[in-house]
């Protein structure tokens, strides 16, 4: 194997690795959070993150982690822009998500830490600080 062949091989390897990374990023579903909530295994929490209800398969946990990592990044970014704490941005988002994204029959976890199923058309009770 001469030097040029090795350089070409290295370039090919780098290309393949890059493609692999791009493929993984693309695999993130456009409606990941909504379908997780609809699965009944995942719910919205008062801390602004998704949580696993009971014992869910590791694949579900991995998806929840993936969404939460992205949320954390967005919260961090917005907190820096507005001079707020990450927890404040997260809690404000939780108010909004609990109000608009939890459908009847789906799960939510309030500040008391217990999982509740939204009952019919009754509104999800919001933490006191929600405006």
């Amino acid at each position, binding site marked *: 194997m001469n*030097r040029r062949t*090795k*350089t070409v*091989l*290295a370039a090919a*390897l*780098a290309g393949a*690795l*890059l493609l*692999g*990374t791009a493929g993984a990023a693309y695999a*993130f*579903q*456009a*409606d*990941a*959070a*909504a379908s997780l909530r609809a699965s009944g295994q995942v719910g919205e*929490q*008062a*801390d602004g*993150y998704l*949580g696993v209800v009971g014992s869910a398969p590791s694949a579900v946990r991995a998806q929840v*982690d993936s*969404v*939460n*990592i*992205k*949320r*954390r990044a*967005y919260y961090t970014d*917005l907190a820096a*822009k*507005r001079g*707020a704490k990450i*927890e*404040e*941005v997260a*809690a*404000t*988002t939780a*108010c*909004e*998500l609990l109000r*608009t*994204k939890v459908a009847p029959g789906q799960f939510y*976890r309030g*500040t*008391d*830490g217990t999982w509740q199923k939204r009952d019919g058309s009754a509104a999800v009770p919001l*933490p*006191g*600080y*929600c*405006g």
Partner: protein
Amino acid sequence: MRRAKLLLLAPALISTAGCVSVSAPDKPIEINLNINIRQEVVVRLQEDVRELIEKNPGVF
């Protein structure tokens, strides 16, 4: 020869570094039951948060 080996190794190292950065958050994300937030802070951030949710339907 030695340089060629280095060339082979470099992309592998870069890619590993990239993977590590997205594999897990620094701290486990746990529900904080002692959320102590003033309502005025929530009101101030509300518009930005609504926009954030609208623009990122997969994450929210």
